[in-house]
């Protein structure tokens, strides 16, 4: 039990002991009974902070008693709510009629997109295959298109052989 008689905060204001706040609220509501009530009563004799806080709480209750509770919305309110519920149900039902159609349309669109992607990738694959085939052919044909340059004769026999070839070609 706190025996703090000068329970003040930084602003030099009396404050309640934290361990007694719930009991003080009960005391204010008139619901504190038994040993807890006598314990709080004992504490209040010695704790100025809790006494001041309890007095403040009582003033706050008087202050809040000025306020009026919200008015009853009236007998017609339940009818308004029921009408809105029916309206919402009708609109959600009409939405649910179109729901299967919308779902099928989305599935169709997704399938079409998938097929398109497949076709494109297949076409790209074919194109790259064709390009590589062409380059292979080009490499293989190169010797046929560009004739080999004859190597220069290195000795007299080579010169004679060349001359014999040339004369054969002319004939």
């Amino acid at each position, binding site marked *: 039990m706190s025996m703090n008689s000068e329970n003040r905060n930084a602003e030099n204001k009396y404050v309640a002991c934290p361990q007694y706040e719930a009991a003080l609220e009960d005391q204010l509501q008139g619901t504190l009974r038994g040993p807890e009530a006598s314990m709080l009563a004992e504490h209040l004799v010695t704790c100025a902070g809790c006494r001041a806080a309890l007095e403040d709480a009582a003033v706050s209750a008087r202050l*809040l*008693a000025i*306020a*009026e509770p919200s008015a009853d919305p009236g*007998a017609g309110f339940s009818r308004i709510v*029921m009408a*809105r519920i029916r309206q919402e149900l009708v609109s959600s039902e009409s939405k649910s009629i179109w729901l299967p159609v919308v779902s099928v349309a989305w599935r169709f669109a997704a399938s079409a997109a998938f097929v398109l992607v497949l076709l494109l990738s297949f076409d790209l694959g074919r194109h790259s295959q064709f390009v590589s085939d062409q380059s292979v052919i080009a490499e293989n044909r190169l010797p046929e298109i560009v004739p080999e340059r004859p190597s220069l004769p290195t000795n007299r026999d080579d010169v004679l052989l060349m001359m014999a070839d040339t004369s054969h070609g002319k004939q």
Partner: protein
Amino acid sequence: MAATASALSLPVSRREKGEEERQLVQRAQSGEEAAFEELIRRHQQRVFGLVSGILRRREDVEDVVQQVFLKVFVSLKRFDQRAAFSTWLYKISVNECWDYLRKKKVRPLVYEADLSEEQVSRLDGVVSADQPAASSSDRAEARDLLERMMEKLPAQDRELLVLKEVEGFSVQELAEILDLNVNTVKVRLFRARARLMDVYRRRLHSKPEQQAEGKEG
């Protein structure tokens, strides 16, 4: 329907009332619209109190309350009656209010104008325990001033004070609705009262000094 309404107005014990409500909920769950309408009638005022206690804007309250009952209707079949129907309904109401405030990004009402000395003394008179009963016009003005002071409090404090002291929810009910421990609710309430009194004192007792300082300057 009229027969049901007259039967409901009879004084019955709390237990019988609870059982009657369970049956009403079951009938509503099986699709009986009249039963659901009766549930609305029974709870509409408290839901109104709860929603207006949180939103504090009368123009939004009716729309949010309608939305609450619509949600309750839609999800009623999933309600297993382990908790009281009222607790479940109030929880939905609180969530709907918070959703609404989040979506709308509603800024708290701010009253810029301060209180005049005359208003200060009137409010003091209404609150003072030893003063005779204030006139209805004084009380109306005091209500307006209280509203202004409440706007200076954090939203959580304001909600608790209004729901407890104005709309009449018990500490137990608040604990269930807000998913808090009963003792936590008591402590928060007590601290909220202290903060309200801080605002009240600053408004009441610093005003004349400020005015005097202003005149000297």
